[in-house]
């Protein structure tokens, strides 16, 4: 309170010159980060929008050509784009709830007082920070249709034709999703753990006094209290799934054929293999729009729960 008054007084007494000087000092703090940020992030973002209305192959010799909405019209005729779009949606629609459920259950289990609790939390979280290339290499070896231990085990159990996993058109997406969930659930488990630890034990006590069993406590105390965390996890996961690329490249290479082609994969191919930069820009705008919609929904939702 006193600070506000003293600052206000200082401001009215301070001449204009000092205010300008204060502004300059503040800008000097921001400058290093902001200049880098503006040049390497803001400018490309603006360019991305502009580029989507152009046709260009990226060469310094041949300039970009304005083509209006041609690129966007092409989206509908591009079979690969449509496939990539729906594959991304399917991938997201399955991965998000499955990951959330596993993450939540693990958080609940690992929030109890159990032996070596920290050990279990650590090993669940580790795949998230582990190098994707290394982990995918192991996964691919384990799930190799001919030689991998997983199928050998299945054959030993009497299953004559075990799935072809990453090379099987019917199982490729499943393999991708399994790997995603395994790798990422630890991260979201930690978020749920934080949320769980914020729930007051009094609520559980009150529920016990009312005669609630474990399931009822979970349903009527835990879940409602986790609304904010749940929402955040949902949004983060969804955006992460929209942006997927590395995992697809390592596990299925968008295959077999285009069975697991996703949006960013298509952007990469169109931009860096076909050098059709304008069109790549248009696809990028679709991705951007998808993420924006989810983000806006998040802000709205947060305002509701706040």
């Amino acid at each position, binding site marked *: 309170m006193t600070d506000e008054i003293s600052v206000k007084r200082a401001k009215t007494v301070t001449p204009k010159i000092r205010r300008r000087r204060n502004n300059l000092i503040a800008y000097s703090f921001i400058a290093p980060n902001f200049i880098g940020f503006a040049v390497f992030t803001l400018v490309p973002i603006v360019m991305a929008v502009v580029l989507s209305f152009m046709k260009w192959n990226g060469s310094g010799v041949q300039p970009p050509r304005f083509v209006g909405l041609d690129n966007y019209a092409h989206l509908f005729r591009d079979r690969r784009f449509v496939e990539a779009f729906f594959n991304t949606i399917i991938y997201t629609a399955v991965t998000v709830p499955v990951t959330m459920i596993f993450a939540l259950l693990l958080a609940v289990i690992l929030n109890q007082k159990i032996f070596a609790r920290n050990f279990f939390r650590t090993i669940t979280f580790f795949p998230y920070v582990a190098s994707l290339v290394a982990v995918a290499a192991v996964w691919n070896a384990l799930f190799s249709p001919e030689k991998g231990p997983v199928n050998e085990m299945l054959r*030993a159990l009497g299953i004559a034709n075990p799935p072809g996993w990453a090379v099987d058109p019917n199982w490729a997406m499943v393999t991708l999703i399994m790997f995603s969930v395994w790798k990422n659930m630890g991260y979201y488990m930690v978020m749920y*753990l934080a949320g769980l630890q914020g729930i007051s034990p009094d609520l559980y006590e009150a529920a016990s006094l009312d005669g609630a069993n474990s399931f009822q406590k979970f349903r009527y105390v835990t879940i409602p209290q986790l609304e904010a965390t749940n929402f955040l996890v949902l949004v983060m996961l969804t955006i992460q799934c929209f942006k997927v690329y590395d995992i697809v490249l390592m596990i299925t290479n968008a295959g077999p054929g285009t069975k697991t082609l996703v949006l960013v994969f298509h*952007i990469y191919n169109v931009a860096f293999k076909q050098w059709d930069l304008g069109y790549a820009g248009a696809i990028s705008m679709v991705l951007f729009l998808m993420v924006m919609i989810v983000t806006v929904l998040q802000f709205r939702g947060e305002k509701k729960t706040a």
Partner: protein
Amino acid sequence: MRKRKIRFGRILLYLVLILLALTMLLPFAWMISASLKLNKDVFTFPIEWIPKKPRWQNYLDIWTVIPLGRFILNTAKLTIIVTLLQLLTSSFAAYAFAKLDFKGKDALFLGYIGTIAVPWQAYMVPQFIMMRNVFHLNDTHLAIICLQAFSAFGVFLMKQFYSGVPDELCEAARIDGMSEYQIWWDIMLPLSRPALSTLTIFTFVATWNDFLGPLIYLTTTEKKTIQIGLRMFISQYSTEYGLIMAASVVVLIPVLAVFLSLQKYFVQGIATSGLKG
């Protein structure tokens, strides 16, 4: 009756835990086991968990088959530079947003936050074109550094922390005649060690594991980072399973070391970002 229910619940709990441990650890155990075998022995079934004659030679071969040492050096160099730059510029800028008053502060900060939501994949193409055509920085480490070092997320994280530091501290320092720069260096920086640790870890892991960035920019083999290098190795020597596993183990060690020693900050970082203080 209740006691039996509790015991049953406990047994179920421990079964689930065992299942969890197996699911999370078996792949890594298999990886280590395979890294010590000859290629032909890697896929023998039933699985020979501990090889009778561990082939330590694999761990020597990987350094010569591909320039693994160079890749690790490149990645380490990039990670350290990016992390340092991020820490410095983010905390520097965050101080202004948190503790100073200036024209356009709110609009600027909103702009920063807004871009966090924009997926990099949506503007990676024009960014590359700019880097290549304008700055001629394609196939350089400097390109990767420029991309990663100036993050909005870092500024956001540090600003959240600095906002929690009482204003009185800065006011007292100003009355003592300290310049804003001195305040930042002598007071704010040392205080923000937890936030800096969290930012360090996240930046370290993100840069070390970065794949798509180096994939797009680094074309000369000598300049490649460990993720790209390992991937190149796997596609070139796809049947050298023993070597691939050994290389993968080596790639995992630095992150494992950082993770185990700084676990606390990881968890804190995720938890606080979730609570949106």
